């Protein structure tokens, strides 16, 4: 890969910067729409990033320009016009010194409405929160407790300033800029996200939690998350998303990189509820996410996700099991309703010896939606005694939706043991009547049946999150029975 050097950058700046007089123009909190090198530079400048970061972004931008949007997934949508999106926006009046108590009461009220009471969560659930609103963090809590243990948990923009050596060492090592179209785009324009580092041997005493939402029309959202668990450490990380109704499609292309060094464990749980579009399929978020974790020796990474939102979802949290005896897990519930389309799954790449992976995928389709599971289990030639167990269950509601399973297996070592099980079932009228007869109305009956179906995955979520996820399943299937 040809490196984009600082000299190149300087050259660029000389010719472009003043030509457009761009930097001085940026007064508004939202950038003009469109994407070119100037915008990439402007984002980097806005965030006062060091030069290496700017260079890294520019390189990613060039890679992206040379790439084509993938179309192999089982989804249909009008491709976003990448020149019609604003690539940076910040909520008005942000003071980095603010504490949670200083947060705009309107904003807090909005969280409450969405069922996310920050205060309550903070008090009762022992959760440190790093809230991202339109890409910029507005509140961070529990920093002190974490700091005492040497845990770093902060917006990635701050980490770039305060811990450049860590960011520089690890960013892009699990998801390289050229990995795919959306990852390249994200690398070029990511606005913010979370950074987390757990030092050697430290067990993070609380669930780290980030709530994302998109609240400005027409603003693409490009988070970048980097979690590093140093040797023998442990962390559980929660990510949750909600978004208000919206009339035009919104693009979201996040990148999450997890690094579990020797003997470390990372649990990454996501509850995702972006606006899926209305009943006619209008509006809704396009969610193209690259999530990947790297396991060194004896390390373990578990992805647990509950996906109920987005008009189009394209998402494959993956594990690269590089170290011997490392373990990768993927537990997923994906709900699609109305006209939603989801193509999700996972990749388990077995490189080390005695590596183990487990995949439990539960797809629930209602309305006219399409729900696809796509999974790859790859065993390299030197991965002796690799094991995988995959289970993909689909639950259908009605006759107009679809469930599809695409398991891919590439075993290049004879000692590999790979098991795959798949089932498809339908919510029966008899089940509903049985519940009705016991006084449970149809809506609730479906929630109950769906929760039962999803139990194996819900059980993997931290308690408070599981309750929230259950509520979400109910809400997202509301009105799905005629």
């Amino acid at each position, binding site marked *: 890969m040809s490196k984009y050097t600082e000299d190149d950058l300087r050259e660029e700046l000389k010719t472009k910067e003043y030509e457009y007089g761009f930097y001085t123009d940026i007064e508004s909190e939202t950038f003009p729409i469109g994407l070119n090198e100037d915008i990439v530079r402007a984002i980097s400048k806005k965030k006062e990033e060091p030069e290496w970061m700017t260079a890294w972004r520019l390189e990613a931008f060039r890679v992206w320009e040379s790439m084509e949007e993938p179309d192999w997934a089982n989804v249909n949508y009008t491709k976003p016009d990448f020149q019609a999106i604003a690539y940076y926006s910040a909520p008005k009046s942000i003071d980095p010194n603010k504490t949670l108590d200083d947060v705009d009461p309107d904003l807090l009220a909005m969280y409450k409405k969405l069922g996310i009471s920050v205060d309550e969560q903070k008090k009762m659930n022992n959760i440190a929160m790093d809230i991202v609103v339109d890409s910029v963090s507005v509140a961070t809590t529990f920093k002190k407790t974490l700091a005492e243990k040497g845990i770093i948990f902060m917006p990635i923009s701050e980490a770039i300033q305060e811990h450049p050596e860590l960011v520089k060492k690890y960013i892009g090592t699990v998801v390289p800029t050229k990995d795919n179209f959306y990852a390249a785009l994200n690398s070029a324009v990511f606005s913010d996200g979370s950074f987390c580092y757990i030092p050697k041997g430290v067990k993070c005493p609380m669930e780290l939690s980030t709530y994302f939402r998109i609240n400005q029309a027409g603003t693409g959202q490009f988070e970048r998350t980097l979690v590093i668990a140093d040797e023998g450490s442990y962390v559980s990380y929660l990510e949750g998303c909600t978004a208000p109704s919206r009339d035009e499609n919104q693009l979201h292309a996040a990148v999450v990189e997890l690094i579990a060094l020797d003997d470390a464990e990372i649990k990454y749980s996501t509850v995702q509820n972006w606006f899926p579009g209305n009943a006619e399929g209008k509006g809704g978020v396009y969610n193209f996410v690259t999530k990947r974790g790297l396991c060194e020796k004896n390390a373990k990474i578990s992805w647990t996700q509950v996906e109920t939102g987005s008009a189009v979802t394209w998402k494959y949290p993956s594990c690269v099991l590089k170290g011997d005896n490392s373990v990768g897990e993927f537990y997923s519930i994906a709900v699609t309703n109305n006209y939603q389309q989801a193509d999700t799954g996972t990749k388990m790449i077995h490189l080390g010896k005695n590596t183990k992976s487990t995949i439990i995928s539960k797809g629930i389709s209602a309305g006219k939606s399409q729900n696809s599971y796509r999974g790859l289990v790859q065993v390299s030639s030197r991965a002796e005694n690799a094991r995988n167990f995959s289970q993909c269950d689909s639950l259908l509601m009605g006759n107009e939706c679809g469930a599809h399973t695409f398991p891919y297996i590439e075993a290049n070592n004879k000692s590999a043991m790979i098991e795959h099980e798949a089932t498809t079932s339908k919510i029966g009228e008899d089940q509903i009547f*049985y*519940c009705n*007869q*016991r006084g*449970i*109305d149809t809506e609730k009956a479906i929630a109950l049946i769906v929760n039962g*179906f999803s*139990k194996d995955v819900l059980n993997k979520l931290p308690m408070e999150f599981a309750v929230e996820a259950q509520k979400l399943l109910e809400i997202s299937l509301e009105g799905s029975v005629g």
Partner: protein
Amino acid sequence: MLQINDLHASVDDKSILRGINLEVKAGEVHAIMGPNGSGKSTLASVIAGKEEYEVEKGQIVLNGEDLEDLAAEERAHKGIFLSFQYPVEIPGVSVTNFIKTAINETRKAKGLEDMPAKDMLKLIREKSELLEIDRKFLSRSLNEGFSGGEKKRNEIFQMAMLEPKLAILDETDSGLDIDALRIVANGVNKLKSKDNAVVVITHYQRLLDYIVPDFVHVLLDGRIVKSGGKELAHELEEKGYDWIKEEVNA
């Protein structure tokens, strides 16, 4: 309590119930017998409000209220309980979670708060003891992998939990071993009071030795063609249905 007048019901244009008349008063036990396919389960489902069946004519009145416009769950809230001939499986939903949901949804319909967890646990303990159900059983997925007898016992456990006004037991005895039959029948008897009523659908006299009916009805081709006291059940056990068919055709 329950009053059924000239009830006609069909499914997919196939007429199944063809003029049922039945009155069940509080405190009474009624037995409905009849050959396979005569419409017993259909009658139970229609009373419970299964939408698949179309009521073409007649009324079902519960405590003075016509049930016509009530959905199945609303009928349940009014105290109708059906012990299913073939209970369905709901994977991943434990017996406890299911019954808890049923109770709280019923309470919600009546404007009551959820039952406190402590009371719920106490009730579950009490009722599972009544029916001699192992507590471990309650954490299993509803009816999934249950034996025939276990399913039936679980139905009666739910009945005990919900304390209905009108319980319809559709062949609850089939699948139960001799000891289980006694336990379940005892359970039903303990739940009986002057304020509620039980309709048992069965093929066998044996159950009626335990749950003694005040009235026995014979359902044939969608009509109640004969009614009598408990001795009618003995007579049927002895002679089968042919003599009744002959009577009807005569």
